[in-house]
Structure formats: structure tokens, C-alpha cells
């Protein structure tokens, strides 16, 4: 006998360097999952696009869902019940800022009642200790808090929210006091990468279980801000060295996941584990999406939980999911590429944003005919000194006042 624990991990941000595991493959190993599209293990529920922070790299679409279009409490409850019924095991409550929803405790409780394991992905700035405690009592099992830096000067400027950093530190402490595991999510870019060693130490000091060092992915808001955010190649090489060193030094103390900036990789990331393959998310207004940026691709019709279709039907049959599933849709150079089932052609949203056609090879790939032109432009931006942010908001973005941008 030799008892083993296979990692069936299926991080929704399945973009880590190692990408060691494929959740469904581990659980459904007896069948070929690549062709059957089993129901995902975990689903991201974006409860709202409302958020007190204005991070210039927000992963929400530039066209934000207004509060009035959000699913109601009862609609979300029905969705959670349906997800559990069809085999989803985990729910990630995200946003926007999910704690901006007044019914969050009720939704977490409902997730627990139907047997879903719940994670909260939050900026933390709206939480009180009472609220966090109520969430824990409702069955919340894990808290992930985003940090914009390791000290308020940089962090509060990036988030566009005064006092935010101090509040995050406080909520992180409450999380551990309430015996919930904590993940620190640090989104990195040219203007905060110098803080990475201090951010790693901050995560250790906060007694976090896990740190996600996530380089900005450049679509949506981040693409608008690319000139202010894009790191230099030297910064990235230094970052990789710092992360690798910390990973071995902190083994057993802090797990560190590293999301590489794909602009500087040779091959594109296996975005979302492949389009429609092991992940979907639900937008505030109830659209079922292959990734949280998918609505940026024009010309695709996404079905809603408000339609007459079941969630399972939408996952398996809707045109938007089947459009870029598997490898049949691929043009050259993907079509004849030996890596086509490794990265599934990379990111559809990035292909759309940078080439105008979501059906193209992700230009992050050096084999893409668009690669050289785009990445030369990005490298020039990285070397430049355009540091002013366009803050994320419902008005389509607001340029940072000149005196704050140093």
C-alpha cells in the first residue's frame, strides 16, 4: 500500500509557470476529458462589477455591468444550487468587489447548504471584523486578498483608494484570527516589481498560506494601461530569480504561485486550461463565459442563466463555448504545431485584442506572424517613462492627475 494524493488542482487562474496538473484529467483519468468537456470542478462567480478600488489592470471588461443588471439574491441562489447539482465542487466569489453585495453572507450560506466549497476573492477594503466573522460562520473556507504593493504610497496610488493598504493588512490579520487560510494575491507590473521581495516578506508576516505573484495580463483595462505597466525584460528576469529563490527558501512556510507575463515567454499560456475545457465564470448579469475577459470579444453571443437553457446545456452546447474548443478551429501556425494540445493556441481574448481576430494564434507565441511587431512595441513602452494610469471606473476610465504620477 502506498496512499497518494493526486493534485487535481484547477486554479481558475490556470496560468502558472508549472501548470503541473489538470484537475479534470486527474479526476476523470479513465476517460479522455479533452473531448468530453466534463463539468468544471470550480466556477468563478463575479457577483458584481462595483468596486471601491480603481486598479488600472482590472480583469473586468472595459464595458462593466451596471448594478441594476446584476442577478438578484434569489437568482444567484438558484445558480448555486444548479452548479452543485451538475457536479461543480467549488465556488469562487469574486467581482468587482464581492463584499459590495449586501447579500454575500446569505449567498455563502447557501453555497454551504448545497455543498459547495467557497472561496472569497476580495480587495478587503469594505470588510469589518463582524462581517468576516459572519462569512466564516456561514461556511466560508478561504480568503484571498489582493495587494497592490507592500506599503501605502505605491499600493494606494495603484488602487486609487486612500487607506486601502492599511485596511487590507487589518483584514488579513482577522482572516488568520478566524482560522481561515489566507492567500495574498499580488499583481505585479513595472511600477511595483521593485517591491516584490518586501511583498513576499509581508505575506510571510501575515501568516498567509499562499502567495500568488501574478504579472499583469494585458487585455481590457490593462491593455489601455500597457505603457504604464509593462515591465522590462530585465525586471522579469530579476523577478523570476526572486520567486525561484523564495520558493525554495520558504518551502513549507509559504507556497508561491507565479504567473509569468506571457509577453516575454516563448510559448503562450494555456489560457483557462483551454477555451471551454475546464472553466467557466458567471458575470454579474448572469452570462456564462469561458473566461472573465471573454465579453471583450465582439461577435460572440454568450448565453445567460436568465435564458431558457440550463447551465449544463450552455456549457456543452452553446455556440460561444464550442467556437474555440479543442483544436479543430485552429489556423496555422497552431494547426500543425506539436504544442497545440499543450497551450490550445493561447488566449483568445489576447488574440482578439492584438490582432482583431479571436481565431488567430495568440501573438504571445513567437510562432505568430504578429509576435515581433507587437512585442517590439511593448518593449519600447516598457523602456519609456509613461507612468500615468487610466483608472478603472464605470465612466470608461479616468486619467490620473499629473502630480500623483511622479
Amino acid at each position: 500500500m502506498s496512499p497518494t494524493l493526486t493534485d487535481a488542482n484547477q486554479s481558475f487562474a490556470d496560468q502558472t509557470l508549472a501548470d503541473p496538473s489538470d484537475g479534470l484529467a486527474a479526476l476523470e483519468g479513465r476517460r479522455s476529458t479533452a473531448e468530453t468537456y466534463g463539468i468544471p470542478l470550480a466556477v468563478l462567480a463575479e457577483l458584481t462589477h462595483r468596486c471601491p478600488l480603481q486598479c488600472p489592470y482590472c480583469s473586468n471588461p472595459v464595458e462593466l455591468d451596471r448594478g441594476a443588471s446584476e442577478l438578484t439574491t434569489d437568482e444567484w441562489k438558484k445558480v448555486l444550487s444548479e452548479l452543485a447539482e451538475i457536479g461543480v465542487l467549488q465556488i469562487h466569489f469574486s467581482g468587482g468587489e464581492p463584499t459590495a453585495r449586501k447579500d454575500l453572507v446569505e449567498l455563502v450560506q447557501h453555497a454551504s447548504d448545497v455543498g459547495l466549497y467557497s472561496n472569497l476573492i476580495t480587495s478587503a477594503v469594505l470588510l469589518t471584523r463582524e462581517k468576516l466573522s459572519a462569512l466564516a460562520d456561514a461556511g466560508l473556507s478561504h480568503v484571498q486578498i489582493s495587494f497592490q504593493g507592500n506599503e501605502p504610497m505605491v499600493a494606494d496610488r495603484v488602487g486609487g483608494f486612500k487607506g486601502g493598504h492599511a485596511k487590507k493588512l487589518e483584514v488579513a490579520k482577522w482572516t488568520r484570527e478566524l482560522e481561515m487560510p489566507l492567500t495574498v494575491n499580488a499583481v505585479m507590473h513595472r511600477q511595483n516589481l521593485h517591491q516584490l521581495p518586501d511583498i513576499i516578506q509581508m505575506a510571510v508576516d501575515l501568516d498567509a498560506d499562499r502567495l500568488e505573484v501574478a504579472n499583469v495580463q494585458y487585455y481590457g483595462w490593462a491593455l489601455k494601461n500597457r505603457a504604464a505597466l509593462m515591465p522590462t525584460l530585465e525586471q522579469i528576469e530579476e523577478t523570476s530569480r526572486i520567486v525561484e529563490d523564495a520558493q525554495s527558501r520558504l518551502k513549507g512556510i509559504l507556497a508561491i504561485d507565479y504567473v509569468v507575463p506571457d509577453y516575454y515567454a516563448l510559448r503562450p499560456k494555456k489560457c483557462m486550461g483551454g477555451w471551454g475545457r475546464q472553466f467557466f465564470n458567471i458575470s454579474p448579469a448572469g452570462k456564462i463565459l469561458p473566461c472573465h475577459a471573454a465579453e471583450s470579444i465582439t461577435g460572440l453571443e454568450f448565453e445567460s442563466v436568465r435564458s431558457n437553457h440550463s447551465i449544463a446545456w450552455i456549457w456543452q452546447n452553446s455556440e460561444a463555448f464550442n467556437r474555440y474548443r479543442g483544436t479543430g478551429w485552429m489556423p496555422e501556425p497552431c494547426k500543425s504545431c506539436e504544442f497545440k494540445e499543450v497551450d490550445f493556441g493561447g488566449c483568445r481574448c489576447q488574440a482578439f485584442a492584438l490582432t482583431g481576430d479571436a481565431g488567430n494564434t495568440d501573438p504571445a507565441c513567437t510562432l505568430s506572424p504578429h509576435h515581433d511587431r507587437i512585442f517590439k512595441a511593448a518593449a519600447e513602452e516598457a523602456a519609456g517613462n509613461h507612468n500615468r494610469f487610466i483608472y478603472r471606473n464605470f465612466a470608461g476610465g479616468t486619467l490620473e492627475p499629473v502630480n500623483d504620477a511622479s
Partner: protein
Amino acid sequence: MPSGRNISVSETSRPKLPRHAKLKFDETRQVWVILAPERVLAPDEIAVEVLHLCDGVRSVAEMIDQLAAKYAAPREAIATDVVAMLQDLADKGFLAEAREKTP
């Protein structure tokens, strides 16, 4: 409750799963899973059996005895495997120990 990364599993440990690591039978896929922060682990049959014995009362030594009797296997080999599996879980932060003092 001491939980997670600083636990050193020995035969005297009385481990149990913490609140944030849930052992559950996945009806859809007909397999046991451990649900943990943003992760799903797939324990094999014997690991599931070990985890069912982790109630915070039973010691690891008692679990090993029980498994050795059941499988008529050498105790030493079982002990090595069980401790390694539990330590792996502890290192990931997915194991807790019952409090030292009992009222």
C-alpha cells in the same frame, strides 16, 4: 487549533482535517476528493481510508495498527507510507492536530 504548515506528523499525532480541507464523495464523478483552498485533491482508495481514521482522537500509531491488521502487511512499511502521506497533507496546510490538553 494548531493547523497546517508547522505540524510534524509522528505516530503520537492525533490528526484531523481542518475546517478548510473537506473530504467529500463526489457523486458526479464517483470519486473521493479533498476540497481545499482553490484546489481539489484526489486521494486514492487507501489514502481515503487513512483520512477516515483521522478523527482527532485516534493516534497515527493506532491507525497503522488497524491497517496492518486489516491488510496483513508489515507494520513498518505501512507506518512509513501513512506518515509520509499525512506529512504531505500537513505541509500543504491541510491537516490539523487535536489540542494537547483534554478537559
